[in-house]
């Protein structure tokens, strides 16, 4: 079985010289949902930006067997959809429908096809009623759903969600987990939200200092790295 994503020895250094990634190996198989844990600044987001060629470092990144390079980038960006942390940066078009259709028009769909696909994607995330609204009048949870719709509309093979629950209230987090669990794609979640990860992911990897320090089940990684505030190692209780 070809892995959907295969990364070997990925290293990346920012222009100012800081090494963000120092030899990352990673693999994602079809149907899998993996969570990336790790402290802030450990390289999770930098890593994710390599998966559709927004950044390029040393080492190899392959998506569905295709190496990520200049020639393959349009194809790769169709296969890997990223939902970014800040929905406001992602929703830049004047209306919800135009935003969801943005990627489709770029892919060359004609207007009618783009509109019907965008409407279908909005129905999937339960936001059909908001089609003609402006993104800035939506709540954080609604914005996130529209952002997901904009990616889902392009029917990618891999869905990457960067801190999807960061600005959501608990009911919003629950309903997003519900939504994401029903999407058919293989997924990579970057999050600090343990219940969210537990609900969705079979496997967890832990980033530290620009490398993957450990891999295992979500429970395993959480307990090994004392990664949960709400139980176990919280020193505030004592």
């Amino acid at each position, binding site marked *: 079985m070809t892995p959907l994503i295969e990364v070997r020895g990925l290293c990346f250094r920012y222009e100012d010289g800081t090494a963000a990634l120092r030899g990352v190996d990673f693999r994602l198989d079809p149907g899998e949902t993996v969570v990336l844990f790790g402290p802030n600044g450990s390289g999770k987001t930098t890593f994710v*930006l390599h998966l*559709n060629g*927004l950044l390029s470092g040393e080492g190899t990144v392959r998506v569905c067997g295709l190496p990520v390079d200049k020639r393959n980038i*349009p194809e790769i*960006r*169709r296969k890997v*959809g*990223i939902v*970014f942390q*800040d929905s*406001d*940066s*992602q929703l*830049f*078009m*004047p*209306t919800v*429908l*135009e935003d969801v*259709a*943005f*990627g489709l*028009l*770029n*892919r060359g769909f004609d*207007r009618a096809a*783009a*509109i019907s696909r965008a409407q279908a994607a909005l129905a999937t995330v339960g936001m059909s009623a908001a089609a*003609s609204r*402006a*993104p*800035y*009048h939506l709540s954080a949870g609604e914005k996130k759903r529209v952002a997901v719709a*904009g*990616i889902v509309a*392009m029917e990618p093979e891999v869905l990457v969600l960067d801190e999807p629950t960061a600005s959501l209230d608990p009911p919003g987090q629950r309903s997003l987990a519900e939504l994401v669990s029903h999407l058919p794609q293989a997924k990579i979640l970057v999050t600090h939200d343990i219940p969210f990860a537990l609900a969705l992911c079979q496997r967890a990897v832990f980033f530290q200092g620009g490398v993957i320090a450990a891999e295992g089940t979500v429970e395993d990684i959480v307990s090994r790295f004392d990664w949960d505030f709400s139980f176990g190692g919280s020193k505030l209780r004592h």
Partner: protein
Amino acid sequence: MHHVVLDRWSRGNSPVHRRDPRAKILALAVFLIAVATAHRALLLLAPGLLLLLAATLIWARLPLAGVLARAAVVVPFAGVFALISGLAGDPARGLSLMAKSYLSALAVLVVGATTPLPALLRGFEMTGVPRFLLIVGQFLYRYLFVISEEAQHMRKAAAARGAAARDWMARDLRFRAAAGALGVLFARSHARAEDIHRAMLSRGFVGHFQPLEPIRFRRSDAAFAVLASLAPILVRIAVERAAR
């Protein structure tokens, strides 16, 4: 905030809202020129044109008093100059400044309150304004909501850090604090622009925006354009005849 209210108004539904933005732009241009070039019988002309705009507002089902009050943002500035003109022995000019600037501002507001800004900008594109400038304007408007919110948080934070102190040193410190806040806001805005660009690339942006729906100039738009352009001209001719 002002632009939030205007945004709500502009997304209403009325015969005026539904007109092609180009028809409204044309009518607006004619109205503004009719006002700008008027010299005689302003005391009669101004109420006539005001009635015309008020009728449009009612037709557009917008809150009349609310819109009339918003257009009054020009009054302080115009008022100062009217006063100065009066002092300089030219009260007629003072009155004309007040009337003309208020009417013009109200006319622009009527169009802005019946046309969502993105549609208005597309209307301007089709009249030949550089596309790049309009896309910049669209991003500017979109992120006005986001960046102003960030700025408000910062203002509160700065106020919380002892803005009560009054002596000279405190003023210097507050000046620096404000400059620091703007430095941070600048850097954040810049980073946000990079994020937006990433999000665009990530969805296969190919270098140009494609509109989702073509704007169609219907017969009703043509009719509106003709009538709405003729109206201020006819009002002016009638008033100036009557005043002769």
